[in-house]
């Protein structure tokens, strides 16, 4: 569905994305991992037309992304960011309804879809009347996910969706997301700096460093056949609990 072809994006002298070519097939789940500043979030933003490359091309379903068509394309992609990006002046329900309403959906259709999604995301239906400030971090993230899925888009981009959550909620939500991914058959790209999380949710891992892709493969590929020493270092840097002593 998504193709980046020799894409370069510079901020001044620094290349945020440096000649990257990569493709994401329909219905696949991929995770982009790397340290902060490696360009992984920027890559998502390029796919949404929130950034525009100086060189190379972004294609969605074989059509090059253009400024005059980008709005319609964005509606085919769900996007969830850290802490949700919910609009604080709108209730959860109005956050969900914003785009469908503009597209001319009637209230019944919006409500029906919201009900469907609240079942899917285990979000209590009556909490839809609340404002973001009245929701917990995990609930906010669920609403953000619902908002991204309202139009049932073929693709879902998630940028550190668990970044602001405490470990227990995070764990719970990761489980749910895995179920949802399996149920929905969407093209999913997840950005995270947590290898365990990436490997849990996505069969394909793409490790980035300094705006380039260092390695693209399964966890096993990265572990057993690292492209260079950095890959091993990055994997090893994930801290585990110490073994329990007997």
């Amino acid at each position, binding site marked *: 569905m998504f193709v980046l072809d020799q894409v370069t994006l510079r901020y001044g002298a620094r290349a945020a994305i440096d000649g990257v070519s990569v493709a994401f097939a329909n219905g696949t789940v991929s995770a982009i991992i790397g340290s902060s500043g490696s360009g992984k979030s920027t890559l998502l933003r390029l796919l949404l037309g929130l950034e525009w490359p100086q060189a190379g091309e972004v294609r969605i379903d074989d059509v090059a992304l253009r400024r005059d068509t980008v709005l319609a394309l964005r509606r085919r992609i769900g996007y969830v960011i850290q802490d949700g990006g919910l*609009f604080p002046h709108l209730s959860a329900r109005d956050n969900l309804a914003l785009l469908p309403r503009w597209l001319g959906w009637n209230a019944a259709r919006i409500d029906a879809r919201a009900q469907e999604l609240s079942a899917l995301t285990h979000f209590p239906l009556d909490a839809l009347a609340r404002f973001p400030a009245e929701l917990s971090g995990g609930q906010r993230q669920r609403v953000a996910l619902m908002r991204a899925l309202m139009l049932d888009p073929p693709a879902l981009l998630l940028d550190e969706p668990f970044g602001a959550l405490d470990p227990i909620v995070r764990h719970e939500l990761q489980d749910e997301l895995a179920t949802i991914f399996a149920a929905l058959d969407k093209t999913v790209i997840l950005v995270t700096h947590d290898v365990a999380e990436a490997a849990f949710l996505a069969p394909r891992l793409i490790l980035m460093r300094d705006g380039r892709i260092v390695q693209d493969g399964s966890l096993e590929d990265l572990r057993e056949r690292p492209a260079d020493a950095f890959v091993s270092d990055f994997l090893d840097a994930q801290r585990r609990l110490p073994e329990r002593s007997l």
Partner: protein
Amino acid sequence: MNARRAVLALVLLFAGAAAQAAPLRVGSKNFTESIVLADIVSLEAQRHALTIEHRKALGGTRILWRALQEGSIDLYPEYSGTLTRELLRGIKADADLATIRAALQVQGIGVSEPLGFEDSYALGMREDIAARDAITTISDLRVHAQLRFGLSSEFLDRDDGWPGLQRAYALPQSPRGMDHDLAYRALADDAIDVIDLYTTDAEIPYYRLRVLTDDRHYFPAYRAVLLFRLQALRDTPALQSTLDALAGRIDVAAMRAMNAEVKLQRHPERAVAATFLGVTETTTAGDSRVRRIAQRTLEHLGLVGVSLILAIALALPLGILAARRRRLGQVVLATSGILQTVPSLAMFVFMIPLFGIGAAPAIAALFLYSLLPIVRNTHAGLVGIAPELRESAAALGLPLRERLYRIELPLALRSILAGIKTAAVIDVGTATLGALIGAGGYGQPIITGIRLDDIGLILEGAIPAALLALLVQGVFELIEYRLTPRGLRLIARE
């Protein structure tokens, strides 16, 4: 929605007044003698079956002169010395009336025969202080550099005032500027030693002042005359008989007595003028204080309301534009910032050539003052929206317009309302100056009160103005609370 209706009514009122068959509009400066003279002209003209509108106490010479040139008044009392020294260029200070008349004719302005008295500028001191230092002439002041001068602002600035006087006499003192009517009070309280005065001022005997001899004959003759638009005379030939009837009619003693009656005995100018002319003044059944204040309130609200609505209509789009385009935004913010630095009275005066006198120029000036707070807060509110929210809106696939209305403006609403509130409160205060260019409002009793040294009258304008400012503040806070989405109030509470 009563306020909106009141504003609408006021706008219609202005429009209606403009459409009516114009009466002869007589102006006066913001000092007693000028007002009494204008009332005398008005009453005399009424005897000649003319309809008169007296636009009272319109600030200083500049405002009257511009209003006459620009045609928003037809006639006002002036002094020959002011004409030769200040208003007309390339004419000698002691030029005769024929020369003055010729110079004025070019500008479409006529001048009456002298009314009979002179009212010169002079310098004065308390008799006891002058006697102590043995000062009788202006030259004597040169050796007393420690003397404190408190001069009227107009005198300080005018070519025929302090700058020329200082040169002519080589005076070493550096004067402070103050209101003429307050200067007498300051002199009596020994806060200053020397003031400028008009030789017909009633206060000279009252405060036992010594008028210093102009031993170098610096001050020209200030013969009282009437200036009028020649067009007005063509339109209303009966005006000539009024002018003829007043020629040479008022001598110095009569003028000084009338000034004293108004300033010291607190008789209304119009009544004093009527007594002088020997006509019975049809007393307009004494307006009650409450009605007066209600009238002023309506005028004041009109000035503030109309200017604020116009300012919002322009400043809001400008603020949005400024937030969208950074470069242009800097220009917009700088321009509205510069407007704010124009001193308020100057701003009002600048509007006269464009809008005449009355409510229109005052509204224009207030409008310009209101722009900055609203533009700046709209800009700040929009620019201050968290980038991730802005981007979430973009990523949803909402078009720009929709994002502006549904996301950005609601998020910036508080800041925008705060800007409008600031503008409104500033307007309520600044609008009091509108009285100086004939716009009425709470400024009217304030300037009259200052002129007549009447604290009660000053408070009659100052207290309602302060209350209105508080009320405006309160109302806007309520609006702010009501309009702020609950979701945002929750955040503020956290």
